Protein backbone atom coordinates (compact mmCIF):
# COMPACT_ATOMS: atom_id res chain seq x y z
CA UNK A 1 0.00 0.00 0.00
CA UNK A 2 1.64 3.21 -1.16
CA UNK A 3 1.36 6.52 0.61
CA UNK A 4 2.15 9.96 -0.78
CA UNK A 5 5.80 9.90 -1.82
CA UNK A 6 6.48 13.52 -0.89
CA UNK A 7 5.37 13.10 2.70
CA UNK A 8 7.06 11.78 5.82
CA UNK A 9 4.67 9.76 7.94
CA UNK A 10 5.30 9.60 11.66
CA UNK A 11 3.90 7.67 14.60
CA UNK A 12 4.53 9.64 17.76
CA UNK A 13 3.51 10.20 21.35
CA UNK A 14 5.18 10.06 24.71
CA UNK A 15 7.36 7.03 25.18
CA UNK A 16 5.26 4.02 26.29
CA UNK A 17 2.06 5.55 24.91
CA UNK A 18 1.31 2.79 22.40
CA UNK A 19 3.48 3.96 19.51
CA UNK A 20 4.86 0.46 18.83
CA UNK A 21 1.36 -0.98 18.60
CA UNK A 22 0.38 1.73 16.12
CA UNK A 23 3.50 1.02 14.02
CA UNK A 24 2.62 -2.65 14.08
CA UNK A 25 -0.95 -1.92 12.97
CA UNK A 26 0.31 0.16 10.05
CA UNK A 27 2.87 -2.49 9.12
CA UNK A 28 0.30 -5.28 9.36
CA UNK A 29 -1.93 -3.44 6.91
CA UNK A 30 0.85 -3.57 4.34
CA UNK A 31 1.53 0.16 4.55
CA UNK A 32 5.20 0.97 4.04
CA UNK A 33 7.11 1.40 7.29
CA UNK A 34 10.78 1.94 8.10
CA UNK A 35 12.28 0.16 11.08
CA UNK A 36 15.18 -2.10 11.84
CA UNK A 37 15.88 -4.82 14.37
CA UNK A 38 18.46 -2.92 16.38
CA UNK A 39 16.26 -3.17 19.46
CA UNK A 40 14.93 -6.71 19.78
CA UNK A 41 11.50 -7.57 21.16
CA UNK A 42 11.55 -8.04 24.91
CA UNK A 43 9.12 -8.33 27.79
CA UNK A 44 8.34 -4.62 27.56
CA UNK A 45 7.45 -4.84 23.87
CA UNK A 46 6.99 -8.54 23.08
CA UNK A 47 5.91 -7.81 19.52
CA UNK A 48 8.84 -5.51 18.83
CA UNK A 49 9.67 -1.83 18.94
CA UNK A 50 9.34 -0.97 15.22
CA UNK A 51 12.06 1.64 15.61
CA UNK A 52 15.01 2.90 13.63
CA UNK A 53 18.48 2.88 15.18
CA UNK A 54 17.30 1.30 18.39
CA UNK A 55 14.95 4.20 19.03
CA UNK A 56 17.83 6.63 19.23
CA UNK A 57 16.93 8.72 16.19
CA UNK A 58 16.28 11.58 18.59
CA UNK A 59 20.06 12.01 18.67
CA UNK A 60 20.12 12.28 14.86
CA UNK A 61 17.28 14.80 14.94
CA UNK A 62 19.10 16.91 17.52
CA UNK A 63 22.20 16.79 15.33
CA UNK A 64 20.07 17.70 12.29
CA UNK A 65 21.35 14.77 10.24
CA UNK A 66 18.40 12.37 10.11
CA UNK A 67 17.80 11.45 6.44
CA UNK A 68 14.09 12.23 6.10
CA UNK A 69 14.26 11.97 2.28
CA UNK A 70 15.10 8.25 2.57
CA UNK A 71 11.90 7.63 4.48
CA UNK A 72 9.39 9.62 2.45
CA UNK A 73 6.20 7.71 1.72
CA UNK A 74 6.79 5.46 4.74
CA UNK A 75 5.93 5.50 8.41
CA UNK A 76 8.67 5.93 10.98
CA UNK A 77 8.44 6.18 14.75
CA UNK A 78 9.71 9.34 16.41
CA UNK A 79 8.72 9.67 20.02
CA UNK A 80 7.39 12.93 21.45
CA UNK A 81 10.61 14.72 22.44
CA UNK A 82 12.09 14.09 18.97
CA UNK A 83 9.30 16.12 17.34
CA UNK A 84 10.79 19.19 18.97
CA UNK A 85 13.62 18.92 16.44
CA UNK A 86 11.53 18.16 13.36
CA UNK A 87 12.86 20.21 10.42
CA UNK A 88 10.56 21.95 7.95
CA UNK A 89 9.05 19.40 5.57
CA UNK A 90 5.73 17.76 4.78
CA UNK A 91 4.44 15.44 7.47
CA UNK A 92 1.45 13.40 8.49
CA UNK A 93 1.63 12.45 12.16
CA UNK A 94 -0.47 10.02 14.14
CA UNK A 95 0.07 11.10 17.74
CA UNK A 96 -0.83 8.66 20.49
CA UNK A 97 -1.89 9.62 23.99
CA UNK A 98 -2.40 7.34 26.96
CA UNK A 99 -3.32 7.57 30.62
CA UNK A 100 -0.26 9.26 32.16
CA UNK A 101 -0.20 6.92 35.16
CA UNK A 102 0.02 3.94 32.83
CA UNK A 103 2.82 5.63 30.91
CA UNK A 104 4.77 6.29 34.11
CA UNK A 105 4.16 2.73 35.34
CA UNK A 106 5.40 1.35 32.04
CA UNK A 107 8.45 3.64 31.99
CA UNK A 108 9.43 2.59 35.50
CA UNK A 109 9.02 -1.05 34.62
CA UNK A 110 11.07 -0.73 31.43
CA UNK A 111 13.82 1.35 33.05
CA UNK A 112 13.75 -0.92 36.11
CA UNK A 113 13.45 2.05 38.43
CA UNK A 114 11.21 3.20 41.25
CA UNK A 115 10.62 6.89 40.65
CA UNK A 116 10.74 8.66 43.99
CA UNK A 117 9.90 11.95 42.27
CA UNK A 118 6.93 10.65 40.33
CA UNK A 119 4.78 13.75 40.91
CA UNK A 120 7.49 15.90 39.37
CA UNK A 121 8.03 13.45 36.51
CA UNK A 122 4.30 13.42 35.78
CA UNK A 123 4.17 17.19 35.68
CA UNK A 124 7.16 17.43 33.36
CA UNK A 125 5.95 14.79 30.90
CA UNK A 126 2.44 16.23 30.82
CA UNK A 127 3.99 19.60 30.11
CA UNK A 128 6.21 18.11 27.38
CA UNK A 129 3.14 16.43 25.85
CA UNK A 130 1.17 19.69 25.84
CA UNK A 131 4.03 21.71 24.37
CA UNK A 132 4.70 19.24 21.56
CA UNK A 133 0.98 18.89 20.76
CA UNK A 134 0.67 22.64 20.55
CA UNK A 135 3.76 22.89 18.32
CA UNK A 136 2.63 20.26 15.84
CA UNK A 137 -0.92 21.61 15.72
CA UNK A 138 0.37 25.06 14.86
CA UNK A 139 2.73 24.05 12.03
CA UNK A 140 1.54 24.45 8.45
CA UNK A 141 3.70 21.55 7.24
CA UNK A 142 2.11 19.01 9.59
CA UNK A 143 -1.24 17.25 9.47
CA UNK A 144 -1.91 15.45 12.70
CA UNK A 145 -4.36 12.89 14.02
CA UNK A 146 -4.55 12.60 17.79
CA UNK A 147 -5.54 9.18 18.98
CA UNK A 148 -5.83 7.59 22.41
CA UNK A 149 -4.26 4.21 23.18
CA UNK A 150 -6.74 3.41 25.96
CA UNK A 151 -9.62 4.18 23.62
CA UNK A 152 -8.12 2.08 20.81
CA UNK A 153 -8.27 -0.93 23.11
CA UNK A 154 -11.87 -0.16 24.07
CA UNK A 155 -13.12 0.90 20.64
CA UNK A 156 -10.68 -0.51 18.09
CA UNK A 157 -12.93 -0.31 15.00
CA UNK A 158 -13.86 3.31 15.60
CA UNK A 159 -10.25 4.36 16.10
CA UNK A 160 -8.85 2.32 13.25
CA UNK A 161 -11.36 3.98 10.97
CA UNK A 162 -10.14 7.37 12.14
CA UNK A 163 -6.67 6.30 11.00
CA UNK A 164 -8.02 4.98 7.69
CA UNK A 165 -9.82 8.27 7.03
CA UNK A 166 -6.78 10.31 8.02
CA UNK A 167 -4.49 8.38 5.67
CA UNK A 168 -7.14 8.09 2.94
CA UNK A 169 -6.44 4.39 2.55
CA UNK A 170 -8.86 1.59 1.65
CA UNK A 171 -11.32 0.60 4.35
CA UNK A 172 -10.62 -3.09 3.80
CA UNK A 173 -7.24 -2.65 5.55
CA UNK A 174 -9.21 -2.44 8.78
CA UNK A 175 -9.21 -6.21 9.19
CA UNK A 176 -5.41 -6.54 9.21
CA UNK A 177 -5.02 -3.55 11.51
CA UNK A 178 -7.48 -4.81 14.08
CA UNK A 179 -5.65 -8.12 14.42
CA UNK A 180 -2.84 -6.21 16.14
CA UNK A 181 -5.01 -4.82 18.92
CA UNK A 182 -4.21 -7.31 21.61
CA UNK A 183 -5.83 -6.62 24.98
CA UNK A 184 -3.44 -9.11 26.57
CA UNK A 185 -0.69 -6.53 26.02
CA UNK A 186 -2.59 -4.07 28.17
CA UNK A 187 -0.57 -4.80 31.28
CA UNK A 188 -0.43 -1.34 32.81
CA UNK A 189 -4.16 -0.77 33.00
CA UNK A 190 -5.28 1.88 35.49
Amino acid at each position, binding site marked *: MNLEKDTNYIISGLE*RSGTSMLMQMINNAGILTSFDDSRKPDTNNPKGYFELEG*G*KIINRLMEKNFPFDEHKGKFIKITC*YGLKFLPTGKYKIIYSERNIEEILDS*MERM*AKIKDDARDETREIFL*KLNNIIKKQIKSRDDIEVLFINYNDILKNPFENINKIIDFLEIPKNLEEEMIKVVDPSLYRQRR
Partner: protein
Amino acid sequence: MNDETESNDTVAIKIPKEIYDKISDRIKDTDFSSVDEYIKYVLQEVLSDDESEDEEVLSEEDEEKVKERLRSLGYLD
Protein backbone atom coordinates in the same frame (compact mmCIF):
# COMPACT_ATOMS: atom_id res chain seq x y z
CA MET B 1 -28.22 27.53 34.21
CA ASN B 2 -28.70 27.77 37.92
CA ASP B 3 -26.67 25.83 40.35
CA GLU B 4 -27.20 25.08 43.95
CA THR B 5 -24.90 23.85 46.63
CA GLU B 6 -25.28 20.12 47.23
CA SER B 7 -22.35 19.49 49.57
CA ASN B 8 -18.97 20.98 50.34
CA ASP B 9 -17.42 19.09 47.41
CA THR B 10 -20.09 18.99 44.72
CA VAL B 11 -22.85 21.16 43.33
CA ALA B 12 -25.96 20.25 41.35
CA ILE B 13 -26.26 21.80 37.89
CA LYS B 14 -29.42 21.74 35.80
CA ILE B 15 -29.25 20.77 32.15
CA PRO B 16 -32.08 20.33 29.61
CA LYS B 17 -33.65 16.89 29.77
CA GLU B 18 -33.08 16.47 26.05
CA ILE B 19 -29.32 16.68 26.57
CA TYR B 20 -29.52 14.38 29.57
CA ASP B 21 -31.36 11.79 27.47
CA LYS B 22 -28.85 12.06 24.63
CA ILE B 23 -25.99 11.49 27.07
CA SER B 24 -27.82 8.54 28.61
CA ASP B 25 -28.01 6.96 25.17
CA ARG B 26 -24.42 7.78 24.39
CA ILE B 27 -22.94 6.16 27.50
CA LYS B 28 -24.70 2.83 26.98
CA ASP B 29 -22.06 0.10 26.52
CA THR B 30 -19.27 2.41 27.67
CA ASP B 31 -17.30 2.54 30.90
CA PHE B 32 -19.24 5.60 32.06
CA SER B 33 -21.52 4.48 34.86
CA SER B 34 -23.66 7.61 34.96
CA VAL B 35 -24.49 10.82 33.14
CA ASP B 36 -22.84 12.73 35.99
CA GLU B 37 -19.60 10.86 35.41
CA TYR B 38 -19.69 11.57 31.67
CA ILE B 39 -20.37 15.28 32.12
CA LYS B 40 -17.60 15.55 34.69
CA TYR B 41 -15.18 13.86 32.28
CA VAL B 42 -16.12 16.12 29.35
CA LEU B 43 -15.82 19.28 31.42
CA GLN B 44 -12.45 18.21 32.79
CA GLU B 45 -11.24 17.64 29.22
CA VAL B 46 -12.46 21.08 28.13
CA LEU B 47 -10.83 22.77 31.11
CA SER B 48 -7.65 20.81 30.56
CA ASP B 49 -7.54 21.96 26.91
CA ASP B 50 -8.02 25.56 28.00
CA GLU B 51 -5.24 25.26 30.52
CA SER B 52 -2.92 23.69 27.97
CA GLU B 53 -3.49 26.71 25.72
CA ASP B 54 -1.61 28.78 28.28
CA GLU B 55 2.03 29.23 27.41
CA GLU B 56 4.03 26.36 28.85
CA VAL B 57 7.77 26.02 28.65
CA LEU B 58 10.18 23.33 29.71
CA SER B 59 12.88 24.75 31.92
CA GLU B 60 16.45 23.54 31.42
CA GLU B 61 15.99 21.46 34.55
CA ASP B 62 12.77 19.93 33.17
CA GLU B 63 14.45 19.18 29.88
CA GLU B 64 17.36 17.50 31.60
CA LYS B 65 14.92 15.33 33.52
CA VAL B 66 13.21 14.34 30.25
CA LYS B 67 16.58 13.46 28.70
CA GLU B 68 17.58 11.48 31.77
CA ARG B 69 14.37 9.44 31.54
CA LEU B 70 14.82 8.91 27.78
CA ARG B 71 18.36 7.68 28.35
CA SER B 72 17.11 5.23 30.96
CA LEU B 73 14.59 3.93 28.40
CA GLY B 74 17.17 3.68 25.63
CA TYR B 75 15.79 6.49 23.50
CA LEU B 76 18.76 8.81 23.79
CA ASP B 77 22.54 8.42 24.06
